[in-house]
């Protein structure tokens, strides 16, 4: 499979978990520890999906999602963005979806659900 997935996440433990999950299903993970690095790495045309933490140290996930949607507009295929957050406030899910995310997931992330979501957006060839 080896599809490239960009993960924008500042917490090393969470990054490690996601890395393990993606690699178990043969996805290739590209890591960004903050929002601005994430925006740069997202320019790679081979990125097929983005996992986006909302609580980032530099620019919050909503702003990153908005910029990603603008920056990636020229791509032929819409890149799915899954928003992931731990410390939510009222309306965060609504804000994430309005900012251009396709799915909102609260931590702790259920791995089976994440796999199901990945499979939905990036179906494996033999599916």
């Amino acid at each position: 499979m080896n599809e490239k997935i960009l993960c924008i996440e500042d917490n090393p433990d969470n990054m490690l978990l996601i890395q393990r999950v993606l690699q178990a299903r043969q996805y290739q993970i590209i890591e960004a520890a903050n929002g601005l690095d994430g925006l740069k790495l997202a320019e790679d045309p081979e990125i097929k999906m983005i996992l986006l933490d909302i609580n980032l140290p530099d620019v919050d996930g909503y702003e990153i999602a908005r910029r990603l949607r603008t920056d990636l507009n020229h791509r032929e295929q819409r890149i799915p963005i899954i928003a992931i957050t731990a410390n939510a406030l009222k309306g965060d899910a609504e804000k994430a979806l309005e900012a251009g995310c396709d799915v909102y997931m609260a931590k702790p992330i259920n791995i089976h659900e994440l796999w199901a979501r990945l499979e939905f957006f990036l179906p494996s060839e033999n599916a």
Partner: protein
Amino acid sequence: MNIRRGVRGWLGFSKTGTYSSPFKTPPFLSTLECSGCGRLFPPDRIHTYCPDCQSPLLARYDLKAARRKLDRDAFRFRRIGMWRWFELLPVVDPKRIVSLGEGDCSLLRLVHINRELGLRHVFVKDESTNPTGTFKARGLSAAVSKANELGIAKVIVPTAGNAGGAMAAYAARAGMEALVYFPKDAPRANVQESRMAGAQIVLIDGLITDAAGMAGEKGRREGWFDLSTFKEPYRVEGKKIMGYELAEAFNWDLPEVIIYPTGGGTGLVGMWKAFAEMEALGWLNYGHKPRMVAVQAAGCAPVVRAFDAGAAFCDFWTDAQTIASGLRVPKSFADQLILKDIRESRGIALAVSDEDILRAQHRLCQEEGIFPAPESAATLAALEELVRRRWVDRDERIVLFNTGSGLKYLDQSTEAA
């Protein structure tokens, strides 16, 4: 995490003040199993959810041994309450049980509504007689007792309302510190009862899922043990006893339909687990198990949407709004289990409007003398819809769950009246 010595619990008081267990055999608890990946964990240590796949853990019992040693008909002669099912609950030492007399709530046959709906056997399992007025007492008695046995000193919970009140009460009885995160519009009774029980209270501008995020963060940072729904393995064990009580009340011939208000889904998952256990124990007279109906509010129905779409997980429900605060759960941590159990039972998930909930609440009160929580009134509204759809048969035995007393929601009820 702070560890403390547990308090003395339930049972066996003698005139000399000594305690002795009335149970001949210890519980048959054997392991904890991840509901997602199947990994096993020893139950004599503190666990939350699976560290590998982050799915809920479920307690497993040595049911083969239990089948040989337990007599289902002997339980009815024990002192009433949830803990008479001790051997099938997770606390090993009865002295560690923290009880306020929960369980063995009434099963009432409806007198008037039965007839009006053209049905013959509609019952209400009235959980409002539990300590703190709701079914949450069962789960929190089990979870706090196990926490007590494991030496936990500080417990935290995010809640839409009733679980907070119940946890505060059981923590007070156990001598534990308690911290409760409520949405700021949670029923006043829940906040007040928690305060009275000595819990610290945090009111947040958000829903239970938002509270869960904050409570989880606080717990990790400061060593509070998180008793959130399905983020520890034992609340569901207390809830499952509702299933054992039902089976016993129906003389081990389970009813055909159970209609259950579904927020976090612990009761539904717990009862389905109980039915599977009873099947393995050989306690059921007939093979059939009930069709489980999950009822949600139209303003927050993630399970219904996922069920209708054939999905394995729920999408987060945005802009959740309903007067039934216990149903304002945009996504349960156990959504996969809930959906699986409904499907396995050949059941259905159904949403009802707030208007129908309020109408059903008045109907139950005026015609049957039961003042239910709005969540519970939703089950009658759902039954009315199922009758319209001819999904239930007039001779089927149907059980509605009144999960809590309407007295805890006087603000909402008064406003609506």
